């Protein structure tokens, strides 16, 4: 049984305006699964639906076999699904440490220990613990956003375009961190515009086009497919 299973998911603002038109998706324990595709394919909508921010019209989302679709975000977060939005993913006027405290708001037990572990994993955040989050660089902000999600010791991390707007060097550091977090036992579902990099670190990947599954399979196989290279990886 997969950790996360999405079946025939239909999500839209109205029946005539469906963004996801029957998507299937799954993540196994310990995997990094990439979701790539053109703009408007419904990649971010898929993650928001899993996180409980959008209510599905039809279909189901299960975590360890238990239905979670339609549950409020707070309850889904409590079950071990941590979502990191693409933008506005930090509390800008609060300090780095306070952001981490809010990251672990639903599970305050052992908050100090978890913060120490996060600081050990991300030393740059430890150095800047008293700085207001809005003063961080783009890469540091994404690192903080991911670190906040880790405060609830999630089973699965949903990352929505984590490298958007980052310099190549900052993006590279971020992808290294994503792999490190995965090696620590956290499964990851990652929507990414930078398809080449996503396929490099992912175990498997899904390609969505116009709200439907287009292709899926091992990331290395997809990266080696000439058609996919031509259409999605820029040749």
């Amino acid at each position, binding site marked *: 049984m997969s950790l996360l299973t999405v079946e025939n998911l239909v999500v839209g603002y109205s029946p005539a305006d469906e963004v996801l038109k029957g998507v299937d998706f799954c993540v196994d324990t310990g995997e990094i699964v990439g979701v790539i595709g053109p703009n408007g394919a419904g990649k971010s909508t898929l993650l928001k639906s899993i*996180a409980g*921010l959008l209510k599905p019209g039809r279909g189901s989302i299960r975590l360890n076999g238990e239905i979670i679709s339609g549950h409020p*975000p*707070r309850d889904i*977060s*409590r079950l071990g699904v941590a*979502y990191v*939005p693409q933008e*506005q*993913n*930090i*509390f*800008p*006027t*609060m300090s780095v440490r*306070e952001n981490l*405290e*809010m*990251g672990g*708001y*639903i599970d*305050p037990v052992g908050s100090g220990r978890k913060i120490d572990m996060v600081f050990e994993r991300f030393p740059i955040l430890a150095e800047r613990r008293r700085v207001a989050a809005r003063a961080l660089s783009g890469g540091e902000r994404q690192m903080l956003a991911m670190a*906040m999600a880790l405060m609830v010791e999630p089973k699965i991390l949903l990352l929505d375009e984590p490298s958007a707007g980052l310099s190549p060097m900052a993006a590279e550091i971020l992808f290294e961190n994503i792999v490190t977090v995965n090696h620590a036992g956290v499964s990851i579902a990652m929507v990414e515009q930078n398809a080449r990099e996503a396929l490099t670190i992912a175990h498997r990947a899904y390609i969505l086009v116009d709200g439907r599954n287009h292709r899926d399979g091992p990331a290395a196989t997809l990266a080696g497919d000439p058609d996919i290279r031509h259409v999605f990886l820029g040749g």
Partner: protein
Amino acid sequence: MPPLLAEIAQLVVNGVMAGTILAVPAIGLTAIYAVLRFPNFALASHATIGAFAGYIANVKLGLPILPSVGLAFLVAGAVGVATDEVVLKQFRPAGFITTAIASIALTIALENIVRFAFGNELRGYALPIERDWRFGSIRVGPQQVQNLAVAAAAMVMLFSFLAFTRTGKAMRAVADNPMLASIKGINADMISRLVNFVGMGLAGLGGMLIGLDTTIDPLTGFRSILSVFAAAVVGGLGSIPGAVVGALTVGVGEELCLLFLSPDYRSAVGFVAILLVLTLRPRGILGQRAY
């Protein structure tokens, strides 16, 4: 000290005293704005309700001033939560302008309930008659100093609550990024009720402090709402430290204008301050940081 300098010094001292008291309801207004994103003008009637709750405690029940001030906070806070749940919450989906207009209607209704219950006459608290303290040519009333201490203590407690408690930080988080706060499992409804309780409680406390300096009647809150709103806008609507800075600015400005103008024009300072800030620095002196 030359007479003009002495007069200016006296006005500045009076302004700081008045500004510190004004800061209490201004923090309430700005805290509610930071979390719920609409200017709640019903703050005026809650200031009046607080002033009357304190009056009942002090004059009718014979309690000393400090417990009466605490009761003013609690009653106004409780009424604030109830009126928001019953009235204003229903308007929030219609947008902030509709909710702000509803809050004006609410304040008129509540003010008239107070008028119906207590009548229109001016009332005063049971205060001992004491001589002013003199520092050189500057005179300060002992009651003014006590009011200043209460206002300062309320602010210190609020800042400590926001800086050091988990719930206070959650309140700041909702003000900062409501969507992310919801993802992180912070209960926005609970925070809304809490901010209404604290915000309207501070309005009630401020209403009583204003009354301690003068008298109270059903228009106590209404008369001060322009200065309170000006203080919040000048400091940066949504910024709690900004409300303090704005209140001191407006308080001192209202006193210093007496050098040139009749006291009848004192409230014009609030209008001028709002006009200047919206023209020159629309986000206010400290911007719109919640904390």
